[in-house]
């Protein structure tokens, strides 16, 4: 298992704590159950599977792996390439 720090809306946190208390389980277990249930919903599962397939394809193809590989930068870099020839 991996450690994860998240922020939750106060009201949601309150409700989840109440549920955890009623079942006599830790809040973390409540969150795990909720996450598992969410990720098993057909529409969510379809999205996850689609993303997994895309990730696999990107990992295999070095050209696709270049998408956004340098992260944020100037917004006009692609239209000002010729600036490199200026003083």
């Amino acid at each position, binding site marked *: 298992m991996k450690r994860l720090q998240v922020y939750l809306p106060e009201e949601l946190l309150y409700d989840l704590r109440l549920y955890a208390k009623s079942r006599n389980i830790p809040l973390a277990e409540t969150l795990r159950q909720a996450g598992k249930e969410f990720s098993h919903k057909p529409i969510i599962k379809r999205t996850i599977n689609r993303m997994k397939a895309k990730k696999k394809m990107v990992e295999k193809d070095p050209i696709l792996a270049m*998408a956004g590989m340098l992260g944020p930068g100037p917004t006009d870099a692609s239209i000002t390439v010729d600036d490199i020839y200026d003083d």
Partner: protein
Amino acid sequence: MIDHKSVFIDSSAWISYIVTTDINHNKATNIFFSQQLKSALFISIFIISETITKIRKTLGQKSATMLYRQFLKAERKKRLTILSIDRKIIEEAILLLQKYPTPNTFSLTDATNIILMQKYNIPVLFSFDRDFKRFKARHLSILP
């Protein structure tokens, strides 16, 4: 002879693809992920020079090196062909530039792109550089 679906990729297309905040990033990404770019892809040594110089100037040496290594990786995995430029290509590029009187913004690299595309029968150029629209090259189509 090279496959008719081959695409030559200009510096502007690479830069918009790898920089997430670039104005053309989404457009470039859609094209790179399209079927059209599953075909043979070409660049030249001059495109590497131009792209690396621009990235070095805007994002620093670390990013420039990372990009260079990725070009080499793509070449090793046979997803990209890096074309060399010899003196003959430069001679032909100069002749092409002479047809477009200065001042204009055509560069020697732009002209070598056209010459290489003619030499290797590459029909499609992927570029966001509007200058190419003014090149009167036969059988040249420009993406996007």
